[in-house]
């Protein structure tokens, strides 16, 4: 008797112990309390050690229903339910049943009853956001997914504060969805390593894992993923403050298919983790993105030496990396396949550092450099001399770079360069330079955004160098006048397709007329937003010269109803989108013309002289047209 009372329920007796480890789970079970007093305790262990009261009340024959059965017994019954459909309909009976069914591992479903044992392939994808992200929903997905082809992709975004996703929900997914390949978890404060360890042990097919703002998971999770998911090819970790070097080491050691890695804002990640990850995954890794990390020169040295398969590298916000780091990266001679390099806010990008990078990456095609304040023209020039394959270059907030540096890129990379973008570069002044006249025959696209010093002299140079120019964008370039634009416009032999002159306050009707005369046969998109000096005369020129124009933006220009009338009367014109917002001289008289234009998009915002009832009638009449008003 003594032995029996003391029997702890260990051993063969309690084969489903793990079911009770979750607090949420216990909460559900305790809801059974009101049915029968004696059976109210959640697990077998407690029931047996409960005092035996042989009073009449307890001995009174209770009609047994499924709800008063211990969960082990229910579990055994559910395990034997035939197909997926039967399991799903039982899951619909009550929350308790759903939760219990979701703890059944697919391997534990009795083989004898599995009539439809087709391999699950994972066709479904589910995205739970905000309030919808609950354990109940995950449990339902876990039980139901097998019926509809198996879960392939799962995203859980945002935090449900009241009943958020916990380890219980992840465990259900791990048990019910072995076909899962993509998992994305954002902003979940109530899940821990336990949930991810379950996922790792249940979902061996995992290929993509994205973790963002999950403060309580640590390297332990990554360790489990590394040991159980050999197919992992993409890993992204952002703002997970407890993940450290050991996790990354394990991933590098075990995931031989890893192709892409992105790590952002993880304070425990250091050189050691990055170095061992990159050196182990050397042959498979093609994309690396490192942002806002406390890593130093060692990490860049490893990239330069071991990055033999790398095609895309992004480095941003790495304050500890010095000139030496970039120098070593370039001299590591490993980055032979690198095609795209983006660097933002790294003080280590100096003239010496960038020169070495240029030499080390002979096949670089795309290069973006943002907020690197120490770089000067010399660095850009020597970089351009080595990186001869460059096709596309972007410079943003590199304020020591002047147009000497910019044109050195054009001159040196003249065979391949296709596009150049300059943004917020305050170092550029409009000087008349003498440069060797070598033509950039591949050059198609030039964008200059908010560079106040960019002016007519530079335009003339571009015109001489780039006869094949197709797309030009000059935004906020107050230094540009007709004098500079005219030669550029006349030099473009191939014919301009996209022209964006937003905010060019000095632009005149003559210039617009010139552009439409020379390029009317090719021009498709023309943006004159905020060009105050442009009036109806420009619209008349557009109407008579443009054959292919499909988008026109004359917002904030000084146009009137007669300009709109001219556009509407041009029979060859086939405009799709017209924007005339802030044109305060356009009135209701234009309304019939809009109908005649046949556009599918029309922006009439802040056109004060147009009455709201007039616009309302237009909206009714042009039901097929998207009208902003």
């Amino acid at each position, binding site marked *: 008797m003594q032995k029996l009372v003391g029997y702890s329920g260990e051993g*063969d007796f309690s084969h489903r112990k793990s079911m009770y480890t979750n607090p949420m789970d216990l909460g559900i079970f305790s809801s059974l309390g009101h049915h029968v007093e004696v059976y109210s305790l959640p697990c077998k262990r407690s029931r047996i050690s409960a005092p035996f009261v042989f009073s009449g009340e307890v001995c009174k024959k209770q009609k*047994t*229903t499924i709800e008063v059965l211990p969960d082990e017994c229910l579990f055994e019954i559910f395990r034997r339910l035939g197909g997926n459909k039967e399991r799903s309909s039982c899951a619909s009976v*009550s929350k*308790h049943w759903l939760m219990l069914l979701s703890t059944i591992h697919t391997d534990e479903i009795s083989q004898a009853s599995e009539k439809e044992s087709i391999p699950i392939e994972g066709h479904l994808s589910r995205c739970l956001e905000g309030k919808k992200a609950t354990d109940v929903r995950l449990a339902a997905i876990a039980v139901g997914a097998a019926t509809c082809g198996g879960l392939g992709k799962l995203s859980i975004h945002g935090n449900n504060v009241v009943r958020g996703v916990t380890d219980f929900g992840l465990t259900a997914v791990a048990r019910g969805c072995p076909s899962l390949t993509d998992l994305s978890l954002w902003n979940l404060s109530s899940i821990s390593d336990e949930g991810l360890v379950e996922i790792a042990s249940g979902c061996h097919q995992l290929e993509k894992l994205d973790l963002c703002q999950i403060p309580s998971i640590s390297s332990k999770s990554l360790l489990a993923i590394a040991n159980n998911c050999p197919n992992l090819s993409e890993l992204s970790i952002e703002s997970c403050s407890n993940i450290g070097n050991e996790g990354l080491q394990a991933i590098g050691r075990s995931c031989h298919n890893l192709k892409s890695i992105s790590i952002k804002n993880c304070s425990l990640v250091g050189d050691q983790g990055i170095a061992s990850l990159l050196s182990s995954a050397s042959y498979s890794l093609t994309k690396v993105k490192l942002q806002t990390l406390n890593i130093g020169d060692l990490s860049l040295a490893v990239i330069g030496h071991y990055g033999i398969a790398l095609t895309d590298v992004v480095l941003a916000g790495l304050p500890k990396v010095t000139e030496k780091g970039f120098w070593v990266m370039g001299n590591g001679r490993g980055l032979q396949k690198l095609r795209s390099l983006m660097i933002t806010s790294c003080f280590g990008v100096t003239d010496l550092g960038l020169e070495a990078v240029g030499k080390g990456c002979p096949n670089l095609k795309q290069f973006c450099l943002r907020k690197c304040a120490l770089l000067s023209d010399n660095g850009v020039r020597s970089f351009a001399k080595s990186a001869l394959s460059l096709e596309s270059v972007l410079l943003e907030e590199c304020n020591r770079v002047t147009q000497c540096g910019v044109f050195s890129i054009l001159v040196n990379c003249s065979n391949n360069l296709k596009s150049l973008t300059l943004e917020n570069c305050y170092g550029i002044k409009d000087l008349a330079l003498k440069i060797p006249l070598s033509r950039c025959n591949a050059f198609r696209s030039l964008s200059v955004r908010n560079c106040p010093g960019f002016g007519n002299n530079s335009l003339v140079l571009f015109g001489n160098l780039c006869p094949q120019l197709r797309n030009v964008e000059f935004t906020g370039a107050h230094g540009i006048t007709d004098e500079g634009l005219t030669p550029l416009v006349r030099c473009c032999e191939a014919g301009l397709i996209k022209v964006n002159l937003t905010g060019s306050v000095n632009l005149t009707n003559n210039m617009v007329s010139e552009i439409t005369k020379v390029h009317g046969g090719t021009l498709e998109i023309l943006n004159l937003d905020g060009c105050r000096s442009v009036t109806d005369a420009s619209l008349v020129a557009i109407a008579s010269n443009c054959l292919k124009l499909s988008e026109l933006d004359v917002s904030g220009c000084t146009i009137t109803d007669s300009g709109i009338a001219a556009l509407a009367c041009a029979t060859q014109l086939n405009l799709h989108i017209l924007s005339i917002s802030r044109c305060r001289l356009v009135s209701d008289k234009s309304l019939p013309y809009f109908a005649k234009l046949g556009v599918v998009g029309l922006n009439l915002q802040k056109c004060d002289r147009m009455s709201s009832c007039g616009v309302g009638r237009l909206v009714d009449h042009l039901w097929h047209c998207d009208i902003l008003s």
Partner: protein
Amino acid sequence: MSKKTLTLMSKDKQLFNIEEHLAVQSVTIRNMVKEDGASSVIPLPRVDSETLALVIEYLNRQQAPEEDEDYVKKFVDERGEIPTLLELAQAALDLDIKKLMDAACMKVADLIKDFTLEEVREALRIENDRTPEEEKAIRDEFQWAF
């Protein structure tokens, strides 16, 4: 030793005798016998006398091993009432008699899977314990089931 008799006591204090070599088909009883010889009465406070009688009937069967599968199936089929089956499944689980538990659980599973949702809730007197929000989440996931 082999012909030793054990006494089992049900929840309602009825006593049942069974030969030890038959009783030890229950892993639970076998463990207890191993540990202290179980000379005294073995109380089974969660099994009522009706169910215990059934269990003992099963343990006392005189079947050849190859007919055992069919016997246990028939044994369970003859007691097709859900409440009886549930009691039996629970007792078999507690006493750890695998074949009996397998058969009883399988039978219950077969019975409930042909029920509709409402029939299951009614037959087993299960209350719907979900909030409207949870109800919606589950409906979305199992649309075809409703």
